[in-house]
């Protein structure tokens, strides 16, 4: 029971054999490994069923563009779910914000970047409104955001009532979810050079930072993973990165959507793991009263989470509108379902206090791979919902079981 938690930083000095170490790693991280394996299996299945169509560079780029708006929502949702709250309104907040962006650009000739900025501010205001209701008035988040679902759906319809679907002509705006980063001018090697360059830089950065962290730990005399395991992990990560990069470089390079998701992911991952705010979020999710008595301002942190959620919803709306190159009254339908499912499939605990945004992204990839793959196979949308529901419940059931064993 006790030596399960021996990760690399534990202070114990026990020397264990390589086999034992790997067994321990698997035992500790079984939930994560199962998820990776599931993702690979799902991808392999669709590749087989579509005669290789799924894994083609073109489709992978497509998948990333499709997954971006859900991934952004799911990251924000993970924070909300860790805090034991929920936000059901995100879909229509996204839809509404996307519509406002389109209106600003087409009817008021606002520059697309300014429009995005304004829309994010609208998101912030919505977050403040819902967050204050939850923290100051004390209305449960479920009710607050269910009411929000009604209201923002209404506002979305209202804002598009006169015009119907608005086509967005702005090229820069539409590139967000359809375009790719440009290549270095003058280079023509038959593949996207800048993408490969970014890949190499990323791999080098990962290796340097990992080695630095390991050195630091050894300086403090903390136990670290053995050299073979450490080297294997580095090689494995590098190969995965380069594989994805290679596929993308063979087509048009890295999509802008991937860059945006990457930045959001990096910021939230850093916030949750390295900063005080992150600690407080996990603490409140684990035991809000204990957190309060430890000097944490629970209300302020919760308010922040709702604001961040709605701002990300606005960003998600921008990405979705950009993807369709138009704002439609049906935008936002069932986004919250995909976002919540991604977060739970990614291992966020149903009882709160536990969750990682990096795993949420894997969850989002699982959900969007299912959508994309089944679309390629021509599976009817009704069946798609059923399949997603089954995968979702299996993931959470597995999660609950493995956790209760610990």
């Amino acid at each position, binding site marked *: 029971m*006790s030596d399960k938690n*021996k990760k690399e*930083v*534990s202070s*114990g000095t026990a020397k264990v054999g390589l086999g034992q170490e790997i067994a321990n790693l698997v035992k500790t991280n079984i939930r994560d490994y199962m998820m990776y394996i599931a993702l690979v299996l799902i991808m392999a299945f669709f590749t087989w069923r579509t005669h290789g169509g799924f894994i083609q560079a073109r489709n992978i780029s497509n998948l990333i563009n499709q997954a971006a708006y859900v991934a952004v929502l799911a990251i924000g949702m993970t924070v909300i779910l860790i805090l034991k709250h929920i936000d059901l309104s995100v879909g229509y907040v996204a839809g509404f914000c996307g519509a406002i962006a389109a209106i600003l650009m087409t009817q008021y000739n606002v520059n697309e970047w300014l429009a995005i900025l304004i829309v994010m501010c609208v998101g912030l205001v919505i977050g403040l409104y819902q967050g204050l209701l939850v923290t100051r008035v004390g209305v449960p988040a479920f009710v607050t955001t269910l009411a929000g679902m009604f209201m923002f759906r209404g506002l979305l319809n209202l804002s598009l009532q006169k015009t119907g679907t608005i086509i967005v002509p702005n090229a820069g705006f539409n590139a967000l979810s359809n375009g790719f980063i440009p290549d270095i001018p003058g280079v023509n090697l038959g593949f996207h050079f800048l993408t490969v360059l970014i890949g190499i830089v990323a791999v080098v950065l990962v290796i340097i930072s990992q080695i630095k962290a390991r050195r630091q730990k050894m300086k403090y005399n903390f136990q670290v993973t053995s050299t073979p395991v450490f080297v294997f992990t580095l090689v494995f990560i590098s190969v995965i990165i380069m594989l994805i990069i290679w596929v993308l470089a063979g087509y048009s390079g890295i999509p802008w959507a991937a860059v945006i998701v990457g930045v959001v992911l990096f910021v939230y991952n850093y916030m949750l793991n390295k*900063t005080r705010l992150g*600690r407080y979020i*996990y603490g409140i999710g684990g035991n809000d009263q*204990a957190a309060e008595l430890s000097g944490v301002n629970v209300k302020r942190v919760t308010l922040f989470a709702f604001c961040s959620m709605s701002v990300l919803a606005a960003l998600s709306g921008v990405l979705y509108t950009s993807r369709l190159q138009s704002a439609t009254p049906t935008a936002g339908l069932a986004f919250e379902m995909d976002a919540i499912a991604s977060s739970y499939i990614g291992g966020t605990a149903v009882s709160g206090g536990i969750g990682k945004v990096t795993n949420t992204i894997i969850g989002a990839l699982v959900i969007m791979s299912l959508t994309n793959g089944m679309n390629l196979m021509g599976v009817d949308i009704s069946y798609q919902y059923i399949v997603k529901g089954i995968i979702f419940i299996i993931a959470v059931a597995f999660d609950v079981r493995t956790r209760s064993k*610990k």
Partner: protein
Amino acid sequence: MNDYILEMRDITKEFPGVKALSDVNFKVKRGEIHCLVGENGAGKSTLMKVLSGLYHYGTYSGDIVYNGEVQQFKSIADSEEKGIVIIYQELALVPELSIYENIYFGHEIMKGHAVDWNETIVRATEMLKKVRLHVDPSTKVKNLGVGNQQLVEIAKALSKNVKLLILDEPTAALNEDDSENLLALIRELKTQGVTCIMISHKLKEITAIADTITVLRDGSTICSMDTSEHPVTEAEIIKHMVGREIDNIYPKREKKEIGDICLEIKDWTVEDPVKQREILHHVNLNVRKGEIVGLQGLMGAGRTELALSIFGNTPGYKITSGEVLVNGKPKHFKNPKEAIKDGVAYVTEDRKGNGLILIQDIKYNTTIANLEELVSGLAINENEEINVSNEYKKSINIKAPSIEQKVGNLSGGNQQKVQLAKWLFVKPHVLILDEPTRGIDVGAKYEIYTLMNKLVEQGMSIIMISSELPEVLGMSDRLYVMSEGTITGELSADEANEQTVMAMAVKS
């Protein structure tokens, strides 16, 4: 002649990596009160869970012989059918339901396909009479005090026709009066033929009530003592529990240097606006540098409310008058964060409820209240954090394989030490300890007392809230007694004894 109602033979129960019980033998005579004692983690609760069928047949080795027959309980329902009922420390009542609904919850009285509520009420009233609880059976359980809720649990057990009643620390959350009442009831049940196994940490009540005392240590039976053969003393029990003799439960301080007033409360009045009544009236209190001040009072006297309102955490309450002075400067703490900043720390009585974050590890819990000190730039210096937690783990002897151990998996005593580590890392001037040794075994208690002495020797001020009289008398330099939201007396260590304090505690 010995007629045993229960014999547990060579019970061994293993969890992955831990042998919780090894060849435990445990015999209970029919119609006796049998006390089961041992340090936390000694295996008492595990043994009772094996008996009740919660750890079902096949997950342990050994035999349970009940009424002369070997039993193979697959669930709690199986053992209850045979008349074995266990009442846990955390009461299993539904607060929003009435007393009679609770008593017959899970074994409703049926008339055809519907519940016969009239019959239920009649029988529930009978059961309440048996436990001498004179309240309307339609009262909601949430409106009862803890003591009366305990009685409802026993009434529920009686309604199941209990033959062997197991009580897990039944008096842990009760005040002296309620405890007395409960013990009297247990004695009465004995005369009606109910055999009772009681787990308890309160040695005084054990020596008063037990016919037989069995001591467990590290998953083994150490001894079983028959109190009719020779009277068993508390010292004797302690010796068996810890495996060595503790001469003095309350360690003496080597030097006493009491300085200036560090924290002072003047004319402190707090009101509950919902019920429109004052819960604290004009409280005056102070603590000096290097001093341990006891705050004694019965449950409900307002001690925790006082501490929390000083600490800036008053959900729903309103402070109507008074001031807090820290080192002579007036302060008004709007939230715990401000209090912590000014060097006041509050260690809660309810470590699982609002003290610790159980799903996180020792490291996390140690540093959560003072992350400011570990921050460089935006990020927390995690290596430094590991160092800090390891230091505290070592210096206050938290027994765990590593600081990455989840706090929820630790024993009560070690959880309490993690709480102390957390608040010591804040480096407070004033430490308010609320029931610091509740539900903790003798060995860990002694360590905590020693730590308290060390801290005041270093110049800290401690306010110790406790309902255990001997502890307050043994540790305090000075003590206040509270009753119904008022300080009813202030005594120096020399003036205080059980009689003077008790007299003040029941004064209104």
